[in-house]
């Protein structure tokens, strides 16, 4: 896997998340991701693997990633003085079905990440869309400020309605398309709420080894039987294709 070094232009902390920006002028599709890590190979091989992150935003010149510090990979990225290494763009992003809306965007926790650039794309196509975001608490929910008009739910009720993102959303069957990103159990709930015939696309979250289809580590079970790699066939899947 080829990585290239990028210089971090700036770093911002929004609620419980870290936002980093770097110059990057390639093209991306909303929902595509980057494998990222701090520089250092081959001087250090620990941590060993890069970590997958959705593109949060991209304006043609500057790309940004929004992430939550969970373990040592993200802790190092949060600390990294000014250079990180990325490999991107990877995977298949959200497909926009041409219906003229309204469409629903749902994010659970850090699942909010790919919705910004998706919302930007929908704006460009003049597709009206509603954004629904669920968080653990008000601290994380602060990032909702980046999505004007978004409806918010928090598990502890400290911001927005109390409950999960689905408690913040109305009947999803009334939307011509539903896009969601978040923990797998949330995605399964969104799939059910969207209904059988819905155009519903889910960005799944699996542990990744390589990001380029080589390791078969990042699979999700599919309706047709067996497993497919989320880094190549995904991370965005038609809800109906998934076996959950």
């Amino acid at each position, binding site marked *: *896997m*080829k*990585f290239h070094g990028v210089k971090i232009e700036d770093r911002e902390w929004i609620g419980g998340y870290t936002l980093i920006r770097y110059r990057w002028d390639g093209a991306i599709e909303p929902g595509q991701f980057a494998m990222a*890590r701090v520089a250092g*190979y*081959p001087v250090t*091989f*620990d*941590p*060993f*693997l*890069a970590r997958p992150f959705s593109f949060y935003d991209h304006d043609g010149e500057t790309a940004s990633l929004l992430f939550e510090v969970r373990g040592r*990979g993200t802790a190092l990225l949060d600390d990294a003085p000014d250079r990180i290494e990325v490999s991107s763009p990877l995977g298949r992003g959200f497909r926009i079905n041409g219906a003229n809306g309204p469409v629903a965007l749902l994010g659970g926790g850090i699942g909010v990440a790919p919705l910004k650039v998706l919302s930007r794309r929908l704006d460009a196509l003049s597709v009206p869309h509603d954004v629904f975001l669920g968080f653990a608490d008000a601290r994380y929910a602060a990032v909702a400020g980046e999505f004007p008009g978004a409806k918010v739910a928090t598990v502890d009720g400290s911001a927005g309605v109390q409950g999960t993102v689905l408690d913040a959303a109305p009947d999803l069957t009334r939307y011509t398309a539903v896009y969601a990103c978040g923990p797998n159990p949330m995605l399964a709930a969104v799939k059910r709420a969207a209904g059988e015939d819905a155009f519903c696309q889910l960005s799944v979250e*699996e*542990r*990744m*080894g*390589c*990001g*380029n*289809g*080589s*390791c*078969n*580590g*990042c*699979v*999700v*079970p599919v309706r047709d*039987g*067996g*497993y497919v790699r989320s880094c*190549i066939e995904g991370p965005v899947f038609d809800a109906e294709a998934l076996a959950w």
Partner: protein
Amino acid sequence: MVVRERLAGEKLAVELCGIALETPLIPASGTLSKEALGEVGSVYGAILPKTTTPRARAGNPPPRIAETPAGMVNSIGLQNPGVEKFLEGLDAFDLGVPIFVSVAGDTVDEFVALCGRLAGDPRIAAVELNLSCPNVEHGGLTFCAGPASAREVIEACRDALSSKPLFAKLTNEGVVANAIAAEEAGADALTVINTIPALTIDASAQTILVRGGLSGPAIKPVALRAVYDVSRAVNIPVIASGGVSTGTDVAEFMLAGATAVQVGTASFVREPEEILSEFSEYLDRMGTTASELTGAL
């Protein structure tokens, strides 16, 4: 060490069981997909796709991988489309260098049937037997759990393959005894080693994360010892596998006795091209060539 002038080609070239390889690097089975072939350019002396089995295998449910200190544990479960679909798609792996094919079966008969199926395919330069898969006829012990079972499957496959070179891929446990048995049974080369049995636990969730095989830089010193010991115990070529991550690692494995060197997990985090160019610089610095390095310790 005499410094000589050579063509770059001569510098990196090695010969393995009569097969000319432009470089001693080979991708380790299961670590290079079709989709990633575009990234490898002319780094590899041969291509070796993921192990194929008689029928399609879905593989294990996720989570399948977990990071560990300087390595990772995987439990993919040999996900693959089965040998027939595999052969239909084999041309995609044609980068103009020899193609080796890795096979695994649940029984000796399945191994033999696979070798028979591949024996006549002119696109295939050699076959690697993945002997670390469980032998269902022997209570789930792997085919290379001991010299007797390794010998049985290799002898049978040797016949079935007719003239194609046969590589036996061995695990670390008991590797020297198995290597000697494999040579006697007719293996043309030995791939040493596969992943090392390991386990990861998620302490927060208090659950097992992945039970599988450890690979990556962490296991390099273990693989190096296996390659060194096996090279001194047999007279057939040894192909190294286990933690190769830098050009210096390639040199170390060749010094230990390897004729060719597989790059596996490290290709997830580095470009194989970097590893080859580091190795090439090493050869220049030492004024030697890849083929001279084998066992030069």
